[in-house]
């Protein structure tokens, strides 16, 4: 029976690669915010900015998020141009061909997430599990929970927590993206509610009041500091040569220079690029912009505002001194000085501690799982192009999920996790943020060149995106050049300045080796296919319509 297209649905719904689109635009937005990890990873990132002692963290957040707007504009436009599963890979493959896509994808975005899982989960045991246990110990007066909290913070304890977490993540992946979206949405709502309460508590607390509360809290719960923990930390840092400054005396230059550190958190909305084929309605620029640019602006306002509030209560000298001491001399401070500790210190009620811990958990649990999303989606896209075996990307008929890809990730994450916790492997991965940002920069370059390359120009010209120009130049290219300019600054600083910790020679050789292996693997596979009369490069080519 013929019908009239009512326009109530979208004509572009469909199952691009056999993957149902279970994510709404709102789910995609939350996914980006979680990929940034605006609470957990952010707390770790802020603690790494102490080498720039006169940096203003809230200002730094504003600067880096504004600097990333061009990059996210490119991502939003690429998404509207080609809303495909495994987007990052597909965009690069269509722009540069399979070889360069493989080079810029395999190490940072297939292999990388396996050990990102370890580096993401490791702090979780101390940051989110231990506070729950300590709160329960306080609530039920059961010291055994404190022992458990101490145990999960040891290396072996963290490893077993990691095994549990990776199994949890694999379970979520196997249950599919509809379940993932629901879990993520509820976590987000709880997390936002918790953040709201923390903000209210901070607003109701004065600077002097915090100093007393913190010292008392540390004395009562950790039996440290003799009721003067706050001052002790300041004194110890000063004695060790750290020159802390108040927020009012911070400099714009240092605030800009912490941008590449803050990028460890704020560039990761780009992680959503692989998932765009599973989000409904992203072929519309306003929807893809809501995800990438909306997520960036939301993260910027929330994080800059929250950090300004926190630092105005905690004190910039104290905040940076505590981070300095923890990084340089752990004996001066008994636990990592992440802001969960400061928040818990705002009240003596174990119920409030528990609420802080619940909030931290809400911001934690679904976050490292997105490493598996990234890795599995790219494996699926590569499998669709037959760069990886077809079985890797095949969906289970019962679960509707790529079971083989999830299992590969699960085993890979466990293996690299063990190496991470029990060997010196973590040193080899120091430069990975650099490699990941290179992958994002390569995508930005792909977007910049999209209107001009032979294979991508027809896609661009056929898209409403081609309407957006600036002085006759495609807006995607203008945004791309601006985005690449900031990447150039970041890369210069990553290579030239030791304080970023991303220019370790051994790690560089490890990454170069891994990239070389993936490139050789691709060439070998291409030659093998060619012997069979197939050119795998044609998989990526756009058929002309003229």
């Amino acid at each position, binding site marked *: 029976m013929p*019908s*009239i*297209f*009512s*326009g109530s649905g*979208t004509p572009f*719904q469909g199952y691009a690669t*056999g993957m149902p689109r279970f994510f709404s635009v709102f789910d995609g937005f939350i996914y980006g915010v979680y990929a940034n990890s605006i609470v957990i990873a952010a707390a770790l990132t802020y603690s790494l900015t102490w080498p720039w002692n006169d940096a203003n963290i809230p200002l730094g957040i504003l600067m880096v998020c504004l600097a990333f707007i061009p990059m996210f504009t490119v991502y939003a436009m690429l998404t509207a141009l080609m809303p495909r599963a495994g987007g990052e890979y597909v965009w690069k493959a269509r722009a540069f061909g399979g070889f360069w896509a493989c080079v810029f994808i395999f190490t940072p975005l297939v292999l990388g997430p396996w050990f990102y899982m370890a580096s993401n989960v490791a702090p979780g045991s101390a940051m989110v599990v231990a506070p729950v246990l300590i709160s329960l110990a306080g609530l039920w007066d059961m010291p055994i929970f404190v022992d458990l909290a101490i145990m999960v913070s040891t290396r072996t304890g963290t490893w077993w927590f990691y095994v549990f977490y990776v199994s949890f993540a694999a379970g979520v992946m196997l249950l599919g993206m509809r379940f993932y979206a629901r879990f993520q949405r509820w976590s987000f709502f709880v997390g936002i509610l918790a953040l709201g309460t923390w903000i209210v508590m901070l607003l109701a607390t004065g600077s002097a009041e915090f100093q007393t509360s913190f010292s008392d809290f540390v004395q009562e719960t950790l039996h440290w500091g003799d009721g003067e923990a706050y001052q002790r930390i300041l004194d110890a840092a000063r004695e060790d040569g750290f020159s802390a400054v108040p927020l009012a005396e911070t400099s714009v230059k240092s605030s800009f220079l912490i941008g590449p550190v803050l990028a460890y958190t704020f560039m990761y909305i780009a992680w959503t690029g692989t998932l765009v084929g599973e989000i409904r309605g992203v072929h519309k620029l306003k929807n893809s912009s809501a995800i990438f640019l909306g997520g960036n602006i939301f993260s910027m306002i929330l994080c800059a505002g929250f950090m300004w509030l926190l630092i105005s209560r905690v004190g910039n000298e104290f905040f940076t001194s505590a981070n300095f001491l923890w990084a340089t001399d752990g004996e001066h401070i008994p636990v990592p000085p992440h802001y969960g500790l400061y928040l818990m210190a705002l009240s003596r009620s174990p119920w409030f501690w528990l609420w802080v811990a619940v909030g931290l958990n809400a911001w934690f649990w679904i976050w490292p799982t997105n490493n598996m999303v990234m890795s599995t989606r790219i494996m699926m896209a590569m499998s669709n192009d037959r760069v990886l075996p077809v079985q890797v990307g095949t969906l289970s008929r019962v679960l509707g999920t790529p079971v083989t890809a999830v299992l590969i990730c699960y085993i890979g994450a466990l293996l690299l996790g063990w190496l991470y916790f029990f060997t010196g492997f973590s040193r080899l991965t120091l430069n990975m943020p650099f490699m990941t940002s290179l992958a994002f920069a390569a995508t930005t370059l792909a977007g910049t060149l999209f209107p001009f390359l032979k294979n991508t120009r027809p896609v661009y010209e056929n898209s409403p995106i081609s309407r957006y120009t600036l002085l006759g130049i495609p807006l995607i290219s203008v945004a791309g050049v601006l985005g690449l300019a900031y990447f150039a600054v970041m890369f210069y600083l990553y290579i030239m300045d030791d304080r970023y910790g991303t220019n370790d020679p051994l790690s560089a050789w490890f990454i170069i080796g891994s990239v070389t292996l993936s490139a050789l693997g691709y060439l070998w596979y291409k030659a093998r296919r060619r012997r069979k*009369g197939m050119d795998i490069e*044609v998989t990526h080519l756009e058929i002309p319509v003229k």
Partner: protein
Amino acid sequence: MQTILFATGIRGSQRCWKKLINAGSFYGVQTIILGGNLTGGDIFLIEQCKAGYWTARWDRENIRTSDAATIAELESQARDAGFYPHRATSEEGEVLRSSAEARDKLLRKLITKSISSWLKQSRKKLAGSGKRLFVLSGGADPPYLGELFPDSDTVIWAQNKVLQLENGCPVINQGFSEPTPWKGTWEMEEDRLLDLLETQISEISDIYRAIFNMHAPPFNTGLDDVPADELPETGPMGARYAPMGSRAVRRVIEKYQPLLSLHGLTQGSRRQTRLGRTLCLNPGSLCRLGILSGFLISLDARGIHSFQPVQG
């Protein structure tokens, strides 16, 4: 060595059709096989209202414009996505909304016009090139579709025919499928379908080199998976995907073991599998995105030399 391109389910997308007729020279293939679901099923109405304005609803947005270029662009977008644009007065719009018969009549007119224009384009591209395009019906294609394809050496209406590739491989073409929840036109009961297939197969002697171009995928092979939430009833155990293929097709493949079988019907099931020696392929469809999804298959004297999916 002979290479063929198999694609399916372009569902009225003008962009995909243009790609299809260019694919021969682009991929260097002699024969292109289109496995059914050629036409779309929806009219895209652009209504004229007072004061010279046109209104339409596209992609969840109300559009109201008097700009001829905007309307033309909207029509082009609709054609590329597989819809049939039609400009109407508000009175005609009312009639079309209320009368299935009027819609039927109009859609036939629009499909006829569209196919005629497509054939004109394909004659320009394929005439004298030695390349051929086999077109099969299937799914929601209208029953009169075959009448719109005149006899031709280049664009060949393949429904219910046994054709031959240049290398002599016979291709059995059948667009009918088993009854589905979508209640398509080209559907029949499984036992009748089985009889039809057996009759066709009996026409060929070289079954070892035969290619089955059958719109319906073989039952329960993964090639026929449909997300369960698209169906009125979910599959066993609340499965995420339910099999929607044909038992008759599966039976003839298992019984005769042709070289290759090509299928469509389920647009999300971009899969490959083997039933005995037979390689079964379903490239799925990305027609709404204007992407031609297919498989390139190289055949040599011994059988299938290689194959690979493409999305151009």
